[in-house]
């Protein structure tokens, strides 16, 4: 006989005993469920009244870099509908639409999309005011199946419109549930929709709990279900931002005079975002209740696009701010050094049969590189760009990463545009494009585009020794258990410029603000050495866009501010004073008196950038 044979039954017997014990346990369990607890289960099954009541988790708070609370939670009331208790849904919807001031079809749609089964409450409206709750409670016979529950609503700062930064929260849509990786989302989950609320939803959201209630046939809650412990909710983690609350307010008020624009302030030594504003903004508090069609459509169709976060999603010609790119490329390519002077600037530059004009019609005369940067002489950079050529220009631009996202921790960042030889060949056909395209690129006009964030990050690297840090808004995460996760600075890459090149560029930037003929003199601050660059972007749709990007203190910069104001005119007059205000506020901790600032601008009104 092969093998060991199986005349020995000991193992078979052992298995038999084992199975016997299990069969006995299962039978005992059945007896317990079906005989001892029978009446309990029969009652539940006949009345079919198990109500699952979600215990919403408290979202984490959001604080600024100095631990000042920016986003908090407040108690609010949410109205729910329990479908099985509403015999006539149409009638109920009619009555509700009057009390809640919502359209009937909107309520119907809400009920349809929120339907799980007849016994699961459907959220009708969040953040209902107390008066409405009271009146509903008084006439609750008229509203069968309508229940309310305390739920935390988000409290965003009143001091400024923070919609672009924080975003807002709302109910997860079916699409968002399907796309979520973690399967934690359910119909009715409250999640972050835009901004930081969306970006860090995993941290902030926490985990909803669940109460299992036994309910009588008339809908009265009898108490918790006997054999199911409630699941406690878990509070979300708090976020500590790199944003400075005061600076954010300062930035908002600096922009308040203008209709649209953006401002980004960074710490150039680590990429921390100190302030980020986009105008026009929107107040996220208005979404705390219900996102009804009217409000939403009004925002979407607003011609000034308040939902667009211009700081990271608006693309503009960088204008003279990119003269530093041309200069850096030319220095690296050893075409010039800091003392190189080109032929005399008489206000225009003739190439082929086209005239390229300098912003200063009377011309700048003979300038070296430092003065050309300081006075933003267009003719100098036309010539420089021509010498550098398209290929080398776009090589340095791409090496600087100006065509990529900078991976800021906000959703839907947009990247800039750097035209290259292959781009033009695609656009115009091989060989059909002209050499003079690079002339415009040299002064940041033409097809080249950037975002305000892009300019801020580029300048932060120019003045910190060439390191491109990833811009970030999150500083720390603090879990409710007390664990702390620190978002460390991270280096994306280095600029392709040597230390000497960077020194020369920085000197030009300092001269632009501090020499008497510089274009950025309005950014001068007493006792602090400021550097910066103006820019005025041509806008085919109206007035020029004003740029200014500044940094201070010049020897070891602690802040870089990029300001863009749409359709406002010259960068030197419009944007530079705003950057100055932010820098002064950050480094000196105080605001400039407005009167003084305005006096100054009258005296120097003559010295404007292009």
């Amino acid at each position: 006989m092969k093998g060991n044979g199986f005349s020995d039954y000991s193992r078979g017997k052992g298995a038999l005993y084992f199975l016997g014990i299990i069969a006995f346990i299962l039978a005992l369990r059945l007896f317990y469920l079906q005989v001892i607890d029978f009446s309990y289960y029969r009652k539940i099954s006949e009345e079919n009244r198990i109500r699952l009541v979600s215990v919403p988790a408290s979202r984490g708070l959001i604080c600024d870099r100095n631990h000042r609370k920016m986003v908090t939670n407040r108690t609010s009331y949410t109205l729910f509908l329990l479908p099985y208790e509403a015999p006539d849904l149409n009638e109920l919807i009619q009555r509700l639409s009057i009390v809640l001031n919502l359209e009937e079809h909107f309520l119907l749609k809400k009920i349809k999309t929120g339907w799980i089964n007849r016994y699961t409450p459907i959220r009708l409206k969040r953040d209902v005011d107390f008066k409405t709750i009271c009146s509903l409670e008084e006439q609750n016979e008229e509203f069968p199946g309508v229940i309310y529950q305390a739920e935390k609503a988000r409290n965003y700062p009143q001091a400024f419109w923070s919609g672009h930064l924080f975003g807002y929260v709302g109910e997860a849509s079916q699409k968002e549930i399907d796309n979520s990786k973690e399967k934690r989302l359910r119909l009715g989950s409250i999640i972050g929709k835009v901004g930081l609320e969306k970006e860090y939803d995993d941290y902030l959201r926490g985990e909803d709990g669940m109460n299992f209630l036994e309910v009588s046939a008339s809908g009265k809650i009898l108490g918790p279900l006997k054999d199911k412990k409630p699941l406690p909710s878990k509070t979300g983690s708090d976020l500590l931002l790199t944003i400075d609350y005061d600076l954010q307010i300062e930035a908002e008020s600096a922009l308040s005079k203008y209709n649209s624009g953006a401002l980004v302030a960074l710490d150039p030594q680590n990429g921390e975002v100190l302030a980020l504003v986009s105008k026009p903004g929107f107040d996220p508090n208005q979404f705390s209740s219900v996102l009804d069609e009217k409000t939403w459509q009004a925002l979407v169709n607003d011609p000034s696009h308040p939902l667009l976060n211009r700081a990271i999603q608006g693309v503009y010609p960088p204008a003279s701010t990119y003269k530093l790119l041309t200069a850096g490329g030319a220095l690296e390519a050893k075409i010039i050094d800091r003392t190189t002077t080109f032929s005399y600037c008489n206000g225009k530059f003739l190439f082929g049969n086209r005239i390229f004009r300098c912003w200063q019609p009377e011309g700048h005369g003979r300038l070296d590189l430092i003065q050309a940067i300081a006075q933003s002489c267009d003719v100098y950079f036309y010539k420089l760009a021509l010498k550098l050529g398209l290929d080398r220009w776009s090589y340095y631009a791409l090496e600087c990463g100006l065509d990529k996202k900078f991976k800021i921790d906000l959703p839907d960042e947009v990247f800039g545009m750097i035209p290259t030889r292959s781009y033009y060949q695609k656009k115009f056909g091989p060989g059909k494009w002209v050499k003079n395209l690079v002339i415009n690129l040299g002064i940041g006009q033409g097809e080249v585009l950037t975002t305000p964030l892009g300019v801020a990050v580029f300048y932060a690297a120019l003045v910190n020794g060439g390191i491109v840090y990833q811009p970030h808004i999150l500083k720390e995460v603090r879990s409710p258990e007390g664990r702390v996760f620190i978002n460390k600075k991270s280096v994306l890459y280095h600029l392709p410029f040597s230390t000497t090149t960077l020194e020369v560029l920085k000197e030009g930037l300092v001269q632009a603000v501090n020499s008497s003929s510089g274009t950025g003199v309005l950014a001068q601050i007493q006792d602090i050495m400021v550097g910066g660059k103006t820019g005025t972007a041509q806008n085919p749709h109206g007035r020029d866009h004003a740029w200014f990007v500044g940094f201070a203190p010049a020897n070891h910069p602690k802040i870089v501010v990029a300001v863009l104001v749409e359709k406002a005119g010259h960068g030197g007059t419009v944007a530079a004073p705003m950057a100055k205000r932010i820098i002064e506020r950050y480094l000196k901790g105080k605001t400039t008196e407005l009167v003084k600032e305005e006096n100054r601008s009258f005296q120097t009104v003559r010295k404007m950038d292009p």
Partner: protein
Amino acid sequence: MSLFKLKTEDFDFKLFVTALLLSLIGVLLIFSAKHASLNEQNLFLRQLFWLFLSLITAGIIFIIPLRFHEIFSYLYYLLALFLLGALFFIGTTRLGATRWFELGGITFQPSEWAKIATIFALARYITYSKRSFYSVLWIGTVIVMGFVPLLLVLRQPDLGTSLVFLAIVLSMLYWAKVPLLFIFLIFSPLISLVAGFHWLPWGIFFFLLIYLLYRLRPVFLFSIGVLVLNLAFGILTPLLWNRLHDYQKLRVLVFLDPNRDPLGAGYQIIQSKVAIGSGGIWGKGFLHGSQTKLAFLPMQHTDFVFSVVGEEFGLIGSLVFLALFFFLIFRGLSIASKSRNSFNSYVAFGLTSIFAFQGIVNLGMSMGLLPVTGIPFPLVSYGGSSLLMSWVSMGLLLAIHYKWTEY
């Protein structure tokens, strides 16, 4: 032996009839669970069609000589591994898990095949190798053969089915007469893995382990291996685990089991218990289960099929159902014990173990004794792959019984 003339005295009618009864009960239960639904009323017809196919397949399996499987067992195994591996490249993903091949509307779940193939391969290895419980190489080979498909299935991810592979390895070692304490030692790292989350239970467990090794004194290499693995699992797990963020932990857990939704699973267990408990002694009668009509339990035709038995046929019906199931297991056990061919005996025991494991885990889950793992009830639950493979096992068991005198 003639293939076509049935020797009635050697055909296990009891097993065949029990299995057929369970399958037909399954069709009735699916009909009852879905008769009130809007668009799935005809699921029982599909199941009936699959049952028909399964019976034909079982007949073919019954005719194939068992020697054939013995010769090709390693090939079966390699094919199974290949299919499991291929899943990662051309598999179909549903609900975050890649478990199926899809070919023109027909889906096939290779892990069902892998279970049987692994049993064949292990049976062959154990039969023809020089068995030594003290040989690290022998025990290691058995474990590796079982754990390769286990890990592949776990990666899909499918926690429930990967546990079936654990049951296969355990049962094969048991049937190979490896001393029980040895089996315990071999699987002790898995206990460390669980106990490792708190130092106290793990510490106690570890000292127990050292004491056991001291008393048993297996070969040096084996003892060292057990100790090292236990230390590694016990110490590394909490270290790695604690470094993770809450949401990352959740990702790990969801990775292991994509259906992990504590609220959803908890809800289903309550509803299943209410269904079973409300059945009482006599049940509410066929088609009269109210939990079913109101669609409280979305998985009542698959994983929670037993709740229909409990609700509609009560304690009496449930006990009859249990009796049928355990009688089936008992028949399988006696076939395994009776067979004179070692390979056949191992195959029979392995197949019976899968049945027992899946059935018991499924029942425990329905009654709220075990966590929800998503294991269907063999022969009964809705699903083509599961039914077909259950009947392939039946065909094999019947064949082994039929030729029990064959060496």
